[in-house]
């Protein structure tokens, strides 16, 4: 038994390839837990950051600085009454949120958090991610249609049109990144997520900077298309509040609605991790070749721990600045406890074996977190597009640009 457990730890592959079911199960559980925590954290951060961008405070009451607000919201949603419209199509209404959630979580099977930290590695990894995430639009359409109501139907129509059109630009950008794995005579191309990052490692360059500015242009096209794919501001027309109340999930309430919410955020994390894997070097730390050597390796491997210690310090500064009134005693203790947990995680990350095994995950998550911050930033700064403008950007700007970048990448690659 113990041999079975430790045998995987010594191998250099993902549990799926090693055929180790126990570790596959553990990884799936860890990813599920991590994603749920990330969605909760993202919910809190989004409200806080948006509030600060608009010179407000955001949630402040539930827990210190509103830290427990997402948990309170989740509890509220769980105990809320579950309403199904009388004229709805019951089976389709029931299965639509499940499809959206299942597709949003399934794509994480191939996301490479590190060279060995993925559930499995498929040689059609990118194709699998794009395919499964394109299925989520079915759930949206089914939700909108089965509600048997006007706003959801229009929201679903808008969303399906939008997602189908932006998928094309997204696919073209992805293809030009996949092309880069095979060019410059260093082995054959690959569609596997781990293979793509290894290609960037072998070519000593992140694909954003390759064939400047072609890689950057492909990345920008993908970055725009992924915001549209996940129905987020400024492309959140399917759920434009002023026109369609809440779009396709208007008739959903309670737990079913929370499934849509969960799926939206985990889909955002999924497309961000595609972008990070394809263009931003995946799990690689910054400057792995320019700043190489023992010393730099040590310095960069200490950064995860230092980051968490810094977060803990910020929490403790918050503890000191808390009002001294007895009403705030519980909140102060809670914030101190939160800071202590962060500090402990930081200290744990300084232990050499943990450090070596987990720093890949840290760098990957840090890059994804940067991308998630961009999502919030867009929402805070851009006004919503009109629908004809949205279609114009998709079909008349991004699509020709994508084809052009693809052809130029192929040309430059053959040239060099």
């Amino acid at each position, binding site marked *: 038994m113990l041999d079975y457990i430790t045998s995987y730890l010594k191998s250099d592959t993902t549990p*799926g*390839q*090693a*055929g180790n079911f126990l570790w596959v199960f553990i990884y799936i559980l860890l990813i599920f837990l991590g994603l749920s925590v990330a969605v909760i954290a993202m919910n809190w951060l989004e409200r806080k950051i948006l509030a600060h961008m608009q010179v407000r405070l955001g949630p402040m009451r539930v827990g210190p600085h509103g830290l427990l607000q997402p948990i309170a919201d989740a509890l509220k949603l769980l105990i809320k009454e579950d309403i199904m419209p009388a004229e709805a*199509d019951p089976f*389709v209404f029931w299965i639509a949120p499940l499809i959206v959630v299942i597709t949003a979580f399934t794509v994480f099977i191939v996301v490479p958090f590190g060279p060995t930290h993925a559930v499995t590695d*498929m*040689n*059609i990894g990118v*194709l*699998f991610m*794009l*395919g*499964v995430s*394109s*299925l989520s*639009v*079915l759930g949206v*359409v*089914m939700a*909108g*249609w089965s509600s048997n109501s006007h706003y959801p*139907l229009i929201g*679903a*129509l808008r969303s*399906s*049109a939008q*997602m*189908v059109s932006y*998928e094309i630009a997204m696919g073209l950008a992805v293809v030009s990144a996949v092309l880069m794995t095979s060019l410059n005579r260093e082995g*054959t191309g690959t*569609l596997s997520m781990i293979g793509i990052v290894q290609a960037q490692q072998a070519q000593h360059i992140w694909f954003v900077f390759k064939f400047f500015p072609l890689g950057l242009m492909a990345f920008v096209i993908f970055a725009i298309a992924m915001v549209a794919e996940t129905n987020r501001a400024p492309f959140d027309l399917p759920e434009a509040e002023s026109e369609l109340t809440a779009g396709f999930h208007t008739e959903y309430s309670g737990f079913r609605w929370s499934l849509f919410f969960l799926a939206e955020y985990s889909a955002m994390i999924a497309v961000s991790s595609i972008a990070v894997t394809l263009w931003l070097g995946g799990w690689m730390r910054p400057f792995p070749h320019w700043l190489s050597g023992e010393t730099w390796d040590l310095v960069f491997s200490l950064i995860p721990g230092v980051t968490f210690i810094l977060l803990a310090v910020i929490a403790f500064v918050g503890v000191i600045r808390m009002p001294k009134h007895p009403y705030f005693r519980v909140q102060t203790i809670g914030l101190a406890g939160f800071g202590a947990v962060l500090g402990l995680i930081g200290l744990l990350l300084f232990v050499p074996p943990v450090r070596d095994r987990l720093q890949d995950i840290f760098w990957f998550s840090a890059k994804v977190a940067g991308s998630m911050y961009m999502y919030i930033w867009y929402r805070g700064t851009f006004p919503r597009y009109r629908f004809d403008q949205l279609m114009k950007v998709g079909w008349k700007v991004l699509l020709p640009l994508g084809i052009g970048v693809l052809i130029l990448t192929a040309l430059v690659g053959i040239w060099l």
Partner: protein
Amino acid sequence: MAPVATTFFFYFLSGLTVLSGALVITRKNPVHSALALILALLGQAGLYLMLYAPFVAGVQIILYAGGIMVLFLFVIMLVNIERSQKEEQFNKQWLVGILAAVALGVLFVLVYAKGKSLFPEHAVQLPEQSNTQQIAVLLYGNYMFAFEIASLLLLVAIIGAVVMAKKRI
């Protein structure tokens, strides 16, 4: 890693495909038919996976389940469901139907009876790793001409759609 429970998955996926194929033609509600069709296509993608063709399976999911069926649903949702439910579901062409069914059945029986001599004993075990590359070699090498003709056909279809949809070009 050796494949696990292949017989189970084969019968599961085939059963799913056949069952949902039957649902496609028996459902009154066109949206339900379209959803059953999606299930059938997904089952087919699983069968491709079992044939060691992951690329074809992925493309099947992206194009058919994720792309074309969304457009199908898009159109069906705009149709008035109440009216379409009153319409006749089957046109009563029993003679032709029975003839076609018998012909297909005879074909199946023949294949089952003579299958040993028609098909190779064992399935060819293609290396899963190079599936994508092999398809690329076939498409852009051996069948280049057919591939280009197909893409030309699609281009003509697109131009035709634009001409029909737009009054003033």
